[in-house]
């Protein structure tokens, strides 16, 4: 993105992931490129099936055997796709950690929280049991689990959803990762609990100086936590930009449409500006821009050619022939039409 001197923490270039089976080929991720710096929060925002989880899992090589991966993935300069088993183990337990939407899939039901966190720490540092337990206690405190001492001996099913998610975050932080990958970690939580976990993650990320890639389908959540947002549609990143700019002046018609169709304070007397149609079948992507069939700004080339990324302003990218900012042809970004952003006035 911007060619600063320091090495990016994550560098993904031209990444494609396909799932090939006898019946069909799913083009889950298509020529995706992005970067994240140390200490930056990058949100990947997109709807169901757009390829967010697959992208995130590729960063840790957590894909099933029938996945075909092409392109480049570097974390701290190291080529993740070329790593052997040993290096991968080091990567997963040290440099990079991941938290998931449903903590029950990551926590083992037959061990206590203390045992699980302790074991993770021991595996990577070789410290003794008691020190590991102390460290586990410290981590539960860090994620603000009340009565942490007692919770060490609790089994996952004995904790509420919010506490389980905190325990999983504690486990992910146990080896001081430089990069935290979060796959919809608050989606399954209630509103009052979601905001607790979000503010916690933001605080930890800032205090520990970690980079974070945060996957969500929720614009509101992205607005709460992102420094930079990358918008994904049908396996492609269609727009990237700093959070405030991207929400204020979306360049890509899909981003603008998503903003307009997200219900928040719209006039109750009018219909919501919905995007017509539904996302494409990832087994049969359209020839040109995947959003063209639903796009209000569609023109002839959109149907035949996939638009290349364009960079109309610093730190901003949009893959669109007719994107809003490109009209001005200068560094100033033109506001989208009134109908695209009226929802934000209310």
């Amino acid at each position, binding site marked *: 993105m911007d060619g600063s001197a320091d090495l990016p923490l994550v560098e993904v270039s031209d990444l494609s992931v396909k799932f090939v089976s006898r019946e069909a080929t799913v083009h889950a991720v298509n020529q995706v490129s992005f970067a994240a710096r140390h200490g930056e929060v990058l949100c990947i925002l997109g709807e169901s099936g757009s390829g967010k989880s697959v992208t995130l899992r590729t960063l840790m090589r957590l894909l099933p055997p029938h996945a075909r991966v092409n392109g480049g993935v570097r974390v701290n300069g190291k080529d993740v796709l070329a790593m052997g088993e040993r290096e991968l183990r080091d990567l997963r337990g040290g440099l990079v950690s991941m938290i998931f939407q449903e903590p029950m899939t990551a926590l083992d039901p037959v061990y206590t929280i203390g045992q699980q966190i302790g074991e993770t720490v021991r595996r990577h540092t070789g410290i003794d049991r008691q020190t590991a337990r102390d460290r586990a206690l410290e981590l539960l405190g860090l994620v603000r689990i*009340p009565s942490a001492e007692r919770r060490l001996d609790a089994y996952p099913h004995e904790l*509420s959803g919010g506490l389980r998610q905190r325990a999983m975050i504690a486990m992910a932080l146990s080896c001081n990762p430089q990069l935290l990958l979060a796959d919809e970690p608050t989606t399954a939580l209630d509103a*009052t*609990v979601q905001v607790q976990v979000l503010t916690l993650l933001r605080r930890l990320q800032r205090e520990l100086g970690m980079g974070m890639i945060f996957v969500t389908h929720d614009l509101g959540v992205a607005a709460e936590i992102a420094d930079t947002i990358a918008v994904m549609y049908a396996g492609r990143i269609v727009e990237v930009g700093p959070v*405030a700019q991207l929400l204020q002046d979306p360049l890509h018609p899909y981003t603008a449409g*998503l903003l307009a169709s997200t*219900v928040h304070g719209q006039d109750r007397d009018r219909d*919501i500006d919905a*995007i017509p149609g*539904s996302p494409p079948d990832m087994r049969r992507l359209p020839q040109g821009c995947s959003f063209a069939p639903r796009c209000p700004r569609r023109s002839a080339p959109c149907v035949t050619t996939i638009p290349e990324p364009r960079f109309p302003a610093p730190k901003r990218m949009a893959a669109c022939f007719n994107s809003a900012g490109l009209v001005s042809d200068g560094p100033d970004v033109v506001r989208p039409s009134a109908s695209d952003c009226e929802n934000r006035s209310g």
Partner: protein
Amino acid sequence: MAFIDPRDRGGPAQPMLIARKLKKHFPVKGARGKFVQAVDGVSFTVRKGETLGIVGESGCGKSTLARLLLHLIVPDDGELVFDGDAVGSKIAVNALRRQVQMVFQDSHSSLNPRMPVRDSVAFGPFVQGRKKAEARDIARAILGKVGLDADLFGPRYPHELSGGQKQRINIARALATDPRMVILDEPVSALDKSVEAQVLNLLRTLKRQLNLTYVFISHDLNVVRYISDRVLVMYLGRIIELGPGGAIFERPQHPYTTALLASRPSMDPARRIEEPPIVGDPPNPIDPPSGCRFRTRCPFAEAVCEKVAPPLGEWLGVNSHIAACHILDPASGHSKATQA
């Protein structure tokens, strides 16, 4: 606009539905004598032609309440009055179900996977005594109404449809028997935002065209604000606040409603939430806190909140805004209680 429904018995002032002290406690498996207090003494009315929104966090009893309203589960206690007739005595449960339909939370499993969707839609009218051909015609018409081409989509099976299309089928199925009232249990929660907006628009249009009354359940406050005329807020099986949407959202009275509203993302990175409005998770509904059920998370809790369950204010008419909090009752003894 003088649309008169021949089934309207009580006239416009008679509420479509009155729920009085509905209660449903589920026995806990493997724990004799323990109960989940899913719905615990809930009273409210649904007015003709309105959309009543029901919000609350997961497990607070929204779906259980919805099922009680249709007698899909039998209440332990309480009564229902539909358009002036007590359900069970003056009007049979079957008659109620002809006039009230439901769109279920889990839309994926509520369609028969082995049936073309037009047959699923035609099933209701057929069961209610229409001829097969008639039921098919009704299905065709209603598919058109929900924006699906009957020839193109009718013969398909559920797995051949997108989430938004499936939800349209569910709506079509509910409308095929020409109900007066529809209970929508999280009808858009499983949908992507771009599709959610389409379905909300559709629901609003259908309500106007078909003169419907809605009960709309959702955990998304913004959606509820947009769609509802009045809003009912639940916490652990009880109503804690009820009133017109504008009043609830602009001047919430109950500390829980205030916290719930303040937990919504701001959509503006310059005004992020710095401190969570309340801490902790909702407690277990098996052993709910005594007195006010919110007191364990409430910043204003005092001794009286532990001892006495606050009543839900007095309902003075269609637009009253009431809340169950000791702070609102000058006689409660709470130190913050307002002298009205």
